[in-house]
């Protein structure tokens, strides 16, 4: 059974399983607004495999990171479109 770790999403603490991705951590925590489109439409993962770039969030200060291609890490700081 995977261990639980904590990360920060939009200023609040979220729990996720070690080895899971930022994308699933966010969806599981009901954070469904990953990215804002040019016309400010809120988007979330579509393809789940790094192709569509809809799951982009800012991780530890670096913008445009694909959440579905990134494993969660304890203490990771994630900022999504919701906060921008």
């Amino acid at each position, binding site marked *: 059974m995977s261990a639980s770790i904590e990360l920060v999403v939009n200023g609040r603490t979220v729990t996720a399983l070690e080895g*899971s991705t930022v*994308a*699933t951590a966010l969806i599981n925590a009901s954070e469904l607004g990953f990215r804002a*489109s*040019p016309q400010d439409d809120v988007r979330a993962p*579509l393809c*789940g*495999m*790094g192709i569509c770039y809809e799951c982009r969030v800012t991780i530890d200060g670096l913008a445009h990171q694909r959440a579905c291609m990134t494993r969660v890490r304890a203490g990771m700081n994630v900022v999504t479109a919701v906060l921008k």
Partner: protein
Amino acid sequence: MSEREIDVAIIGGGPAGMAAAVAAREANGRVVVIDEGLAPGGQIWRDKLGVAARGQAAQWKSRLLASGAELFASTSVVDVRRRENGFSVIAERSGEPLTFQARAIVLATGARERFLPFPGWTLPNVVGVGGAQALLKSGLNVQGKRIVIAGAGPLLLPVAASLSSAGADLVLVAEQTPWSSLAAYSLSLWRTPMMIAQAVRLRASFARTRYASGTWVTRANGDGSVRSVTVTNGRKTREIQCDLLCVAFGLVGNTELARLLGCQTRSGAVIVDDEQATSIWGVFCAGEPTGIGGVDLSLVEGTIAGAVAMGRGVSPALRRRRERMRSYAARLESAFALRPEVSALATPDTIVCRCEDVRMADLERSWSSRQAKLYTRAGMGACQGRICGAALECLMGWRPDSVRPPIQPARLSTMLDAGRASQSPSGAT
């Protein structure tokens, strides 16, 4: 920057790439496998969180680990350039540049799903079919979630089974293909009884869920995320409440790198000869980019490509196996052909290019993908036209535009580094 001189650079760590690596290593080549994912396995053999791999997936993963091939995971290939004695592969891992000098390349870049636009498809919790599988394996909790799976292709069944096993409330599986085609396809499987048994077993695992053929989703409804979908079979239409919609229409080979290198393609597939060689000397291609054909064909093609890339021959048995797998693939393609209705779901207001918010109405004037790009910005976003390009090829018949580096968005420092590599004595430009 680190440079490595190797015999074969295998791009893609799914079944085809793994098989190529094992084969190339059997010939004692210096081999690297470069894969974007967190671990090898591609999509179909993606590790499930907290679950050990089993069966074929486990076997091939151990073979890969034992082979001695050097594996670079979470590594994106940004560019591949021809040099005097082979190729420079420019890649990026965790924001850092990596360069490889390889005599030969095996492109095992797999496939992605084909998405066709329909009203509401941009709502959160509308995901692909393989996409749902990928998210599930990477930790998505679907316990108690009401799920509709829709679209086309053999992926619908196994994904339905997975989601059901994971505790989802699977409300409907809607396959757009008409019953007559599905029946014909099932009958054709008599030659491959293993697949019939598999299909029966899969269906049994979510026996209580309605499986509707000749049925498709016409819109996703909701505010902030999907709450219900509208489905039709052309005669009757109804609305179904759900929390997650999984929808995709078959697979499209990831041929960008092949096209960047100048490999010839036909109907969206890289042309390869009997030895998996493309039209470019030193570039081999195996698996889905040569034509969607499934795991077993990818394994055979990968094995051939890896061996030939190291100058080894190919056994007749292997060639025969490939032929058998190819004929299965051909039946698959015709069975799940897309019906015209699913290419006509978008209304003028429906977003077609998600990256740039280009709607169907905006695309009226344009008559090639290049014009659409210039006039509307469709295809100019981060996905580099992968999602909308496949859709527009279906909807308008537009062939995709030419490919330029970087073939994935790359950090500027990586491109800078790659530029410096071009100026060093070892790299001819």
